[in-house]
């Protein structure tokens, strides 16, 4: 797996406040990467440093093998950055603005490039002649994303691309971002974890200026959460509470929750234990026989992983 970004021992201080504390990580090429962390964790500082907008106090950033501090002009040719507030000049039209940005990025055929991204972001027919000041929030975000996509940069950094959008607009932008999967690396910061869970296949979790963990959701889940949580699905009113209690007791399992599934009319029981998983499955089959509708390990959401990884939020 090739890495598009390699960060080593990066630190950033604002006076006495340490925003980033000697962090190191890599970002794999072609992935959609979610950067998550609580407010003040250092996400924006990290993104600003990665985009070359702000220098670090120590450490180094390699973008496609180019040292950002030693050769900033060349390294920044590989990066696009959409900042959180997505500032746009109100006095320009959408197409005009994107052509201006394309020219600033050194692209020769600015008209063609602007049209390409406008089509990709679904603003070609609706908004290309509109004044930016007349655009809705959703269209403004799309223009910002379009700007970030100009020039086919290796690394596209998007800070809160779906903030303030309605569900329909979120779906539209999600679709746009998913279409970029594999073609370039996207680093997306957002507080909408369910959104990131849908589109990202790699995560960087940061807290208090330190990298808590990196990897796919499954990898992070494995390392950061209790993997011994399992469930069984049973038909309602077919298995007595005594048999369930006996099963749990025999396998030294602790019941942590039970819900009645309204739509299927069944019982969903969650439990936790340190025993061998295959033996638990075998035991469940013995106890419940043909009544056992399902058994497995509880899958976790990004939210649970995030809460587990940044434990201070649990309090």
């Amino acid at each position, binding site marked *: 797996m090739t890495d598009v970004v390699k960060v080593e021992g990066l630190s950033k201080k604002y006076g006495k406040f340490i925003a980033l504390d000697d962090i190191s990580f890599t970002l794999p090429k072609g992935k959609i990467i979610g950067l998550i962390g609580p407010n003040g964790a250092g996400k924006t500082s990290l993104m600003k440093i990665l985009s070359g*907008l702000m220098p670090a106090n120590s450490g180094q950033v390699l973008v496609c093998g180019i040292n950002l501090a030693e050769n900033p002009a*060349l390294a920044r040719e590989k990066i696009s950055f959409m900042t959180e507030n997505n*500032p746009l000049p109100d006095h320009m039209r959408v197409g005009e603005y994107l052509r201006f940005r394309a020219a600033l990025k050194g692209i020769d055929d600015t008209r063609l490039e602007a049209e390409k991204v406008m089509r990709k972001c679904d603003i070609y027919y609706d908004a290309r002649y509109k004044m930016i000041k007349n655009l809705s929030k959703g269209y403004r975000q799309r223009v910002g994303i379009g700007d970030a996509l100009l020039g086919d940069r290796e690394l596209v950094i998007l800070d809160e691309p779906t903030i303030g959008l309605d569900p329909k607009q979120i779906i539209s932008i999600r679709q746009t971002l998913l279409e970029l999967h594999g073609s370039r690396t996207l680093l997306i910061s957002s507080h909408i974890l369910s959104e990131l869970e849908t589109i990202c296949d790699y995560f960087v979790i940061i807290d208090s200026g330190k990298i808590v963990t990196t990897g796919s959701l499954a990898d992070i889940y494995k390392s950061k959460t209790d993997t011994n949580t399992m469930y069984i699905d049973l038909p309602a009113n077919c298995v007595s509470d005594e048999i369930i209690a006996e099963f749990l007791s025999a396998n030294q399992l602790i019941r942590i929750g039970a819900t009645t599934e309204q739509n299927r009319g069944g019982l969903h029981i969650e439990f936790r234990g340190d025993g061998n998983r295959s033996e638990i499955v075998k035991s469940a089959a013995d106890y419940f026989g043909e009544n056992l509708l399902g058994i497995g390990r509880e899958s976790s959401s990004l939210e649970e992983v995030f809460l587990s990884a940044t434990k201070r939020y649990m309090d």
Partner: protein
Amino acid sequence: MKKFCVLFKYEIHKLLVSPSTYFIAAIFTAILALIYVFTLREFIVNDQDFSFAHAFLRHCWIPILLGVPLLSMRTFSEDYKTEMMQSVKTIAIGDFSIVLAKFLATYLFYTALWGSSLLLVFFPTMSVPTLMQSGSFLTTFNLVGGYFYIILSGLMFISMSIFFSSLTENQILSGSLAFIAIFATFLSGPIFSSKILSSGTFMDHAFVRPLNIFHQMDNACLGVFDTRIVVLYITLSLLFLSLTKVSLEKKFS
């Protein structure tokens, strides 16, 4: 260079579509018109040692003092406030190119405003052709010298004001700082030279007198130019542009 040209064109476009630009132009023209009327009245009523052009242009410090801060207070401050500067800085473009593009766009507008004042100067000669024949009304060396001085000193005043604009996102504050700095520059010459001249030696006179802006203006309007002043203004302009670049760098560190 290509990116600089793109940015320069963008800055010109931004100035042309902004209503505040026309507001500033209106104020500037109104000030010039007032000076023009008073100078013309003075010129007609009293006997003058100077030509009309000389008498009119020696008051150029008033529109400079009031117009330049208004013209340049938005250059960086507005971009900081709207975060457009952050957006520009995400692109691989040098800080000096950003500073130079903003400076040249503002300077071009400043020059255009002064250029339009030529209409005021020539208007009486067009309406009353006999004025032209009087010789004392318009003289070429007065006009060329006076306008050359205005264009030259504009380099320094605009770069100075842009520097103050790069310090803060508050436009009122940056405009006020620029006003104070320009006012102090105008005031320092007479105060400094009068103190030295009253007690100084011949060497002091030779060194300090050319630094008096009003003395420079009078000389320029008479068609006399000291090359040391040209070098001084260009050097100070480059100094303020460099300071603006440093200020921009600091803003993003």
